[in-house]
């Protein structure tokens, strides 16, 4: 009887959530030309950036960082997902990039602030949750690892949003180079005290396969990805890939890159956890800080009034 109750309960939760639909806000950040848009298109099998205009070098000299949003509704087997992609065009592109992470941090804080106000309001029926659940940070594969700008960005944002580091355009790296670079980046992340998104440890009673998968996932950071907007013919099938004179790179081939791992993690297994951590950790931190500073202001104001009265 006990298990029957649980199963009807979980079925009901399942049905209700399907009815309501899901939402997810994903931020992509990193300098131009690292394949961010192509990757987003590949992840969600859409063409979000059909009409975008790319700026040339001259136009980018004086460019400031913008925050842009693209929202799409996608559906799979009756489950609806409202996906919002937040872009940061201009990040890292100018000659002087001092504090170029600021507009990004401010955007994230603004979403927290809006939610905080809504949550404290009287009518809370239709609160819109625009908080950023995950930030894919693109690291250039052309260098030797993290650069000063990467460190600065991640340190400014790691306590505001779940950061998942991505090793972009990985088709420029041979397998030993990928391993070496991943190891170096992981070491540097630890060295600089950057707190990236941690995959939750799996329960001890999970089966071995799942545990191995989980372990493999943790050791794949940063995800070495390749994206593609085009479909090519490879090994008798039509796949998303990149055609070179020396061979075809298949985006969904786990032997070629970590794209599948990233998609699985982001969409199939950890999307809810990313939202939970955002709500339970990042947002709560923001809220606590907000309340503390408000309290401080109120106390200060009260003291000032007392003083002026006496």
């Amino acid at each position: 009887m006990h298990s029957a109750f649980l199963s009807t309960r979980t079925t009901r939760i399942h049905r209700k959530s399907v009815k309501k639909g899901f939402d997810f806000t994903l931020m992509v950040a990193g300098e131009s030309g690292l394949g961010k848009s192509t990757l987003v298109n590949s992840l969600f099998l859409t063409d979000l950036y059909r009409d975008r205009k790319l700026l040339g070098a001259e136009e980018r000299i004086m460019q400031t960082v913008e925050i842009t949003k693209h929202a799409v509704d996608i559906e799979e087997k009756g489950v609806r997902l409202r996906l919002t992609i937040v872009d940061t065009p201009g990040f890292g592109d100018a000659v002087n990039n001092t504090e170029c992470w600021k507009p990004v941090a401010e955007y994230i804080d603004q979403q927290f602030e809006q939610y905080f106000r809504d949550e404290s309001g009287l009518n809370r029926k239709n609160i819109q949750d625009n908080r950023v659940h995950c930030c894919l940070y693109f690291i250039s594969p052309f260098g030797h690892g993290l650069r000063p700008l990467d460190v600065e960005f991640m340190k400014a944002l790691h306590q505001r949003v779940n950061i998942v580091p991505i090793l972009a355009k990985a088709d420029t790296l041979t397998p030993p180079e990928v391993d070496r670079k991943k190891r170096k980046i992981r070491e540097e992340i630890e060295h600089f005290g950057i707190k990236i998104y941690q995959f939750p440890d799996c329960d001890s009673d999970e089966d071995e396969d799942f545990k191995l998968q989980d372990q493999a996932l943790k050791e794949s950071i940063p995800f070495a990805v390749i994206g593609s907007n085009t479909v090519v013919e490879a090994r008798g099938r039509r796949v998303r890939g990149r055609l070179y004179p020396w061979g075809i790179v298949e985006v969904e081939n786990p032997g070629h890159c970590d794209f599948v791992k990233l998609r699985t993690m982001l969409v199939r297994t950890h999307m809810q956890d990313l939202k939970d951590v955002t709500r339970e950790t990042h947002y709560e931190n923001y809220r606590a800080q907000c309340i503390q500073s408000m309290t401080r202001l109120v106390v200060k104001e009260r003291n000032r009034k007392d003083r002026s009265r006496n």
Partner: protein
Amino acid sequence: SLSGYLKRENVRSLTMSGHVGFESLPDQLVNRSIQQGFCFNILCVGETGIGKSTLIDTLFNTNFEDYESSHFCPNVKLKAQTYELQESNVRLKLTIVNTVGFGDQINKEESYQPIVDYIDAQFEAYLQEELKIKRSLFTYHDSRIHVCLYFISPTGHSLKTLDLLTMKNLDSKVNIIPVIAKADTVSKTELQKFKIKLMSELVSNGVQIYQFPTDDDTIAKVNAAMNGQLPFAVVGSMDEVKVGNKMVKARQYPWGVVQVENENHCDFVKLREMLICTNMEDLREQTHTRHYELYRRCKLEEMGFTDVGPENKPVSLQETYEAKRHEFHGERQRKEEEMKQMFVQRVKEKEAILKEAERELQAKFEHLKRLHQEERMKLEEKRRLLEEEIIAFSKKKATSEIFHGQSFLATGSNLRKDKDRKNSNFL
């Protein structure tokens, strides 16, 4: 035309009646060049990790150096290393200069300056040697940069803002050959669009890159074709992979093998041809006759030299130099005189101040002395009075003692009488 020139210069052209042998002059030139050896200096500008060292290794088929630079340098620096290479009987003194830390700083506004400074410094060194009275130009190790390979990141989009800024500051100082680095991440169709975009950005921003010369008929055609292929999309590797039954320089991926010297895979062979086989000499010549001459002219103009003096008469460098030297000498003398005067003046002033101080001090001294004298006289007077009193007192004492002694020898009644008398004096 040659005949027109000869007519103007009053030179007649003659035919010889036999073989003289000066047709060997070019060979003599070659022999001499071979004896002297050649010198070639390459500057590589590009982000840390973009593949500068690997490409140079691949171009010269040598493992030159071996370590990875850090991304955390606070400034851009340049590192130069010179090597002696030999191929059959031709010796090449190759200097490779690499940027270190380029593109790593958060604020890159000053990144191009150390590069410009380095190029200028080599020009300056050469200029100094040229201007020496006793100079050794023919054994001088020419460190001027003959070519700058600019490494463009393979984003597939366009130039980076730093690239534009840097190349604009270098194009009047050095021959720039832009290359697309790590080009095995750009597909064929993307590459075409990328090259077109890059060249159009360079043109629209007025960046002058090096053009392979098309005036020599033997190489004009291939050079012109190559100019149309810029920037070269290159891949470098010193690793060898077995392809067919040969070991070739390549990069092995899970999806295939990129062969460095396969012209269908990348433009490496084109770069090697153009840079080393065909145009090395032109690069050296352009450096000397164009870039260096521009530097020299600007520098000398800055120092006040001119080719044409007042009244539009030509002025020789020596004359100008002498005039300058004289001017400087005069200037220096004037300054010395000025300083001397100032010194003398200062000494006078100081002397006056000291004299005044001395006078004041003297006056004070006099005043004090006077006071002292007065005080002394007063004291003397007091002393005198005191001494007189003492003498008077002593006399009185002596007298009363004598008197006292006499009355005691008599009787005690005298004492009483004295007492009474004394006492009655009081009444």
